[in-house]
């Protein structure tokens, strides 16, 4: 089966173009956007890890190594599309337009982190694995029913494919031909469990066969491969062609979360041959004449400033409001809950 799903690549590890079919589409604007976003979320990720180490935010799941997959997919979306992320996809969320301060807030245990900017369809990250796959199917089905051309993307990992909701979601999407993209980041691990123990199949793409769903396997560390395959899937979905399953083969460079110790289960040196997606893009930029030191330096500065500002905003954010414990459970609080709230606020006030 694995032969039926060759890994699509546009640039190789050295940044050389290996598939020139989309060459015309690779222009400066695209390259710089890709670089900017990948560098931006990488810097965010580093900052978040460092904040966690300093106890300034809570447990944090880094996505280092998956930037090409997250940026390549998110940049292929349109303004009005829907994004259903996991806890590891804040890179994609930020690229798609999530607020950075709120993203930090989320990882600091703040409800506000779940609220997307007005008009942006970004669902809060799904923590129970694979559940969001059904929400994306439903939300994109709603778009189809409304007669729009909007689509939804569901992000999920290799481990998520073992859950029943993965299967039920893909089946619903294929039966109702919803405009949904099932975007898998196969980063080799589900916490400590390697891909080979998660499933007996050599690819995730082949799981599309069960649903007669178009599927494709791409090099998830190759921004262009991800972006162009995403574009195809987006186009198919928008034009009524139904869902697509994309397997982006990538690698989780770091730990599962800041609470995880990969040396417990990952042989030393494993994955060292994986070329970092940003280095790969840089190599391509240099090879292909897109590298402009001034532009890059300016972008770095801009990004650092943005992140510093977001950290500051997160840390000076008004304290969590106790009332939010109660206020959003229902549109209108039932009497019992109102009483519980009143009594508790009274107790706090009486301190």
């Amino acid at each position, binding site marked *: 089966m694995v032969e039926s799903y060759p890994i699509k690549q546009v640039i190789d590890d050295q940044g050389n173009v290996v598939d020139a079919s989309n060459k015309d589409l690779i222009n400066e604007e695209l390259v710089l956007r890709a670089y900017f976003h990948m560098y931006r979320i990488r810097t965010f990720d580093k900052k978040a890890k460092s904040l966690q180490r300093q106890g300034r935010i809570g447990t944090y799941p880094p996505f280092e190594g998956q930037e090409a997959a997250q940026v390549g997919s998110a940049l292929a979306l349109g303004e009005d599309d829907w994004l259903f992320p996991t806890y590891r996809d804040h890179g994609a969320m930020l690229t798609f337009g999530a607020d950075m301060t709120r993203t930090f807030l989320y990882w600091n245990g703040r409800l506000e982190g779940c609220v997307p900017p007005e008009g942006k369809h970004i669902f809060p990250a799904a923590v129970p694995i694979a559940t969001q796959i059904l929400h994306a199917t439903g*939300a994109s089905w709603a778009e189809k029913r409304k007669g729009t051309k909007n689509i939804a993307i569901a992000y999920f990992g290799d481990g998520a494919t073992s859950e029943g909701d993965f299967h039920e979601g893909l089946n619903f999407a294929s039966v109702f031909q919803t405009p949904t993209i099932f975007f898998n980041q196969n980063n080799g691990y589900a916490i400590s469990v390697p891909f080979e123990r998660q499933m007996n199949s050599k690819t995730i793409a082949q799981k599309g066969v069960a649903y007669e769903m178009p599927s494709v396997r791409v090099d998830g560390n190759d921004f262009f491969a991800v972006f162009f395959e995403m574009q195809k899937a987006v186009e198919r979905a928008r034009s009524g062609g139904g869902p697509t399953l994309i397997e982006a083969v990538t690698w989780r460079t770091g730990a599962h979360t800041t609470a995880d110790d990969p040396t417990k289960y990952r042989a030393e040196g494993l994955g060292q041959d994986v070329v970092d997606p940003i280095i790969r893009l840089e190599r391509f930029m240099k090879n292909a004449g897109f590298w402009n030191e001034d532009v890059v330096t300016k972008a770095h500065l801009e990004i650092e400033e943005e992140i510093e500002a977001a950290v500051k905003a997160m840390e000076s954010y008004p304290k969590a409001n106790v009332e939010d414990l109660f206020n959003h459970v229902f549109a209108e609080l039932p009497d019992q809950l109102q009483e519980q709230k009143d009594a508790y606020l009274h107790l706090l006030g009486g301190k």
Partner: protein
Amino acid sequence: MTTKMTDTKIATKNITLIQAINDGMKIVLERDETTLILGEDVGKNGGVFRATDGLQEVFGEDRVIDTPLSESGIIGTSIGLAVNGFKPIAEIQFMGFIYPAYDQIMTHASRIRMRTMGRYSVPMVIRAPYGAGVRAPEIHSDSAEALFTHMPGIKVVCPATPYDAKGLLIAAVEDPDPVLFMEPMHNYRSFREEVPIDYYTVEIGKGKKRMEGEDVTLITWGAMVPVVEKAANQMKQHGISCEVIDLRTLYPVDERIIAESVQKTGRAVVIHEAAKTGGLGNDIVSIINDTSFLYLKAPVERVTGFDVPVPFSSLENHYLPTVERIVKGIEKVTNF
């Protein structure tokens, strides 16, 4: 099913509970084009109980949708539809088959408003026939309300009569939050009632006094209501006057109607089908404890299903609270 004009000029018809539910759905599908019906066999077949009979013919395959056999799939996609502008009425064929969807309801349907501070919400109704006594196969007869009253973020409704069924169903669909709508299979066709032909609602969160009484308060809901009424009538002959309360909504429970009645009678019996341990009866005991402690003349009695899985049909009549067991319970509190 003939139309009838009552004094107040409200046109009514004499229908069963299941017809009332069908009628309620028809009205909401007509009034609000964002409403959808999803479920197994709800379309062509009109539901295994015929609850959705004829609706696909009127509203089309696009609004009355036969889904694959997958409860998590039904609820999960309904959540996606609900956050994006639709109002799904999802049917779970029997309440005993809601468990595969428990995760989606518990971690998403009930939490999305909270998690997004109100940005997204899930105005969805989950319909589920429940209860024993109709000789159904295994697992078809569970009463799982307590698994949902303990779940913050979802309302739980359970009508006992055709009138309440239609009015509560429409209210549930209009509710901005998820509502689990439990349907007493046993009462689906067991009696008829005059029900307004047109739109009306019954307020969620309000119980109903079905019989006035002085000596004991009997608290129940759903399929147990007629059984409890029978017991109350029987006690009347022995000179004991029972007040019968049909809770109708199981979350949020109408605490006031309970407290007012128990403060009058000083005695209470709670009756439900589900197992005693962990059952909603315990919540009622707590409400009485909290609100009416000093009025109580006897411990509150619970007459419920036993702490056993709902049995095979040959034993289900032993499992269900009977008039006899309810009478014993009433005697226990009156003779205390």
